[in-house]
């Protein structure tokens, strides 16, 4: 009843090819954006912004990046953490070398650096497929982090070996580092996610997105109908790494403030992979839902026992958290292997017919 496209006539090609062809979808997106921009920062306190919302937004961006590569182009990658690290370190290098460059421009520049590195490590994908490729991308993960740890140039030779976000101001407002207010950092992360999320949505329905999906479904067949595997696969690696790079940059500059390479270790790669699998492979909305699930569940698990008055040792609660988290993942994969995106689709089907499902 509420979600019904009947009566919405498309009278020109433009409206037929819109990103969101159905009115209800447009209204929904607009509502989400209005709430995210106008309402959330007013009702959320600092803890919520810093511990829940900002990481959620940043990981959503990374998940969209990985979903482009794994969900749409079918290339499994375990190097997400490393590509995020490239973005973070590139931002750090650029903004310390050229402090006068507008910080909001530095993020996309760092993304481009990450895209270059991603393309380089995407080269083996032309010959290696499936799990072999997944393990091969681990080479990127370990090599890049080792490089950032070992070579002083990357962290400006500071003795602690960490990179710290220097305060950068724009229009008189501090934008980065611990001095920036959580609201500002929230707005920056949100804007990047909104813009790049829409761009991704737009990208995957066009020619490029379709060629990715053709490669994913069967690369030999795709090659025969005239899609160049070289160009398509490398483009997927480049764009995916761009997203991951920007996410990594935001992770340091808008969330953590300072970090070592450990912030980007292999568990981050796994975490992002979890997000897209639980959210749904090949779905932009799924990436965001998956990111929400994976960032919020551990926080909930940490805070829940004290809330109901259970006092358990941190050691035990850490292990319990692991057990519950692992169990939930297995449970979700059994119940709905296609992820949240599929649940959302089913919900829409139901809404279309409600209240007369016959």
């Amino acid at each position: 009843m509420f979600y019904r496209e009947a009566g919405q006539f498309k009278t020109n090609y433009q409206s037929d090819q819109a990103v969101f062809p159905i009115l209800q979808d447009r209204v929904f997106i607009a509502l989400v954006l209005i709430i995210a921009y106008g309402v959330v920062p007013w009702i959320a306190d600092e803890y919520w912004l810093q511990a829940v919302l900002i990481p959620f937004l940043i990981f959503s961006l990374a998940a969209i990046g990985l979903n482009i590569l794994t969900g749409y182009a079918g290339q499994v990658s375990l190097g997400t953490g490393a590509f995020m690290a490239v973005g973070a370190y590139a931002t750090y290098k650029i903004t310390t070398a050229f402090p006068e460059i507008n910080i909001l421009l530095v993020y996309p520049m760092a993304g481009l650096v990450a895209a270059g590195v991603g393309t380089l490590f995407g080269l083996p994908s032309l010959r290696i497929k499936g799990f072999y490729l997944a393990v091969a991308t681990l080479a990127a993960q370990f090599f890049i982090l080792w490089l950032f740890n070992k070579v002083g140039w990357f962290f400006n030779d500071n003795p602690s070996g960490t990179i710290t976000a220097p305060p950068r101001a724009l229009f008189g407002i501090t934008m980065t580092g611990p001095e920036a207010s959580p609201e500002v950092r929230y707005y920056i992360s949100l804007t990047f996610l909104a813009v790049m999320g829409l761009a991704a949505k737009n990208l995957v329905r066009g020619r490029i997105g379709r060629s990715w999906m053709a490669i994913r479904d069967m690369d030999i067949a795709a090659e025969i109908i005239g899609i160049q595997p070289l160009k398509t696969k490398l483009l997927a690696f480049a764009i995916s790494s761009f997203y991951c790079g920007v996410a990594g940059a935001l992770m340091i500059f808008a969330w953590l403030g300072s970090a070592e390479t450990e912030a980007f270790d292999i568990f981050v790669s796994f975490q992002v992979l979890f997000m897209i699998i639980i959210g749904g492979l090949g779905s932009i909305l799924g990436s965001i839902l998956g990111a929400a699930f994976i960032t919020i569940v551990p926080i909930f698990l940490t805070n829940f026992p004290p809330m109901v008055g259970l006092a358990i040792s941190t050691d035990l609660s850490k292990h319990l958290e692991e057990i519950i988290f692992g169990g939930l993942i297995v449970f979700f994969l059994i119940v709905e292997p296609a992820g949240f995106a599929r649940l959302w689709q089913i919900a829409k089907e139901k809404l279309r017919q409600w209240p007369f499902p016959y």
Partner: protein
Amino acid sequence: MELLNILFVAPFLDMADSPVFLLEVIISGLLTGVMYSLVALGFVLIFKASGVFNFAQGAMVLFAALTLVGLMERGVPVIVAIVVAAAVMVVLAVAIERFMLRHLVNQEGIILFMATIGLNFLLEGSGQIAWGSDVKRLDVGLPDNPFEIGDILLSTFDMSAAVIAAVLVTVLAVFFQRTTIGRALRAVADDHQAALSVGIPLKTIWIIVWSVAGFVALVAGIMWGTKSGVQFSLSLIALKALPVLILGGFTSVPGAIIGGLIIGVGEKIAEIYWGPAFGGAIEGWFAYMLALAFLLFRPQGLFGEKIIERV
């Protein structure tokens, strides 16, 4: 120029300088390689028989070793403890089949892979809750005495690790190639549905293969635990086994062994002769780069089944 020297000349001069040392490096590399192979073997078994890329193998090693140590700490004799730990691994295999795999038949590879990562968390958490998370010493009575052949220093422990691995591989190879169950396992690996339709009991097969993998994990856990103590980091050796796997091929038992040996030797040589040129600590990624280089020439690994694609 200096860089070229340090990369391409100096290491070889060092090698030529003292061949005995080089031999020692190679042998210690081979013995480390055997240890990697033990872990990789578990991966291969499960992948061969159920097409599942079992990321939880490392956690299974940890779980098995923790169970063993926990029992021995409570005064259970070694032999009994090993038998009980093996029994626990069988129970675990039954549980995994009952609660996880049965519901995931015919899912895509990546979904199964993800499920085993979930299992990985489950096992790590529950193993450490049950038996505690501090470092434990494991001593099952394997002798560890150094001895010399010629000028080369060896230890009886490393030798027994090599012998155990050799026996294990022989038994597994015979099991896979010569027995009815082995044949059924290979059929399941080829095609779940086809195997079901010719009357192979999928559930039983999966329980058997996960039990065998659990048993291999127990052996690996004993060896690694004796060598470096039983602790959480034991589950991270799975990450060491992955390059071995892709180098040898996911589906080949001999591949796991040869791959392990190549990685072990390559890693040791690189660390000792080229490590200084890179500023050290290169063993974290060297194995992956080595495997990657091999893959560029043989995309299915050294002994993997040739990938034939039809449109």
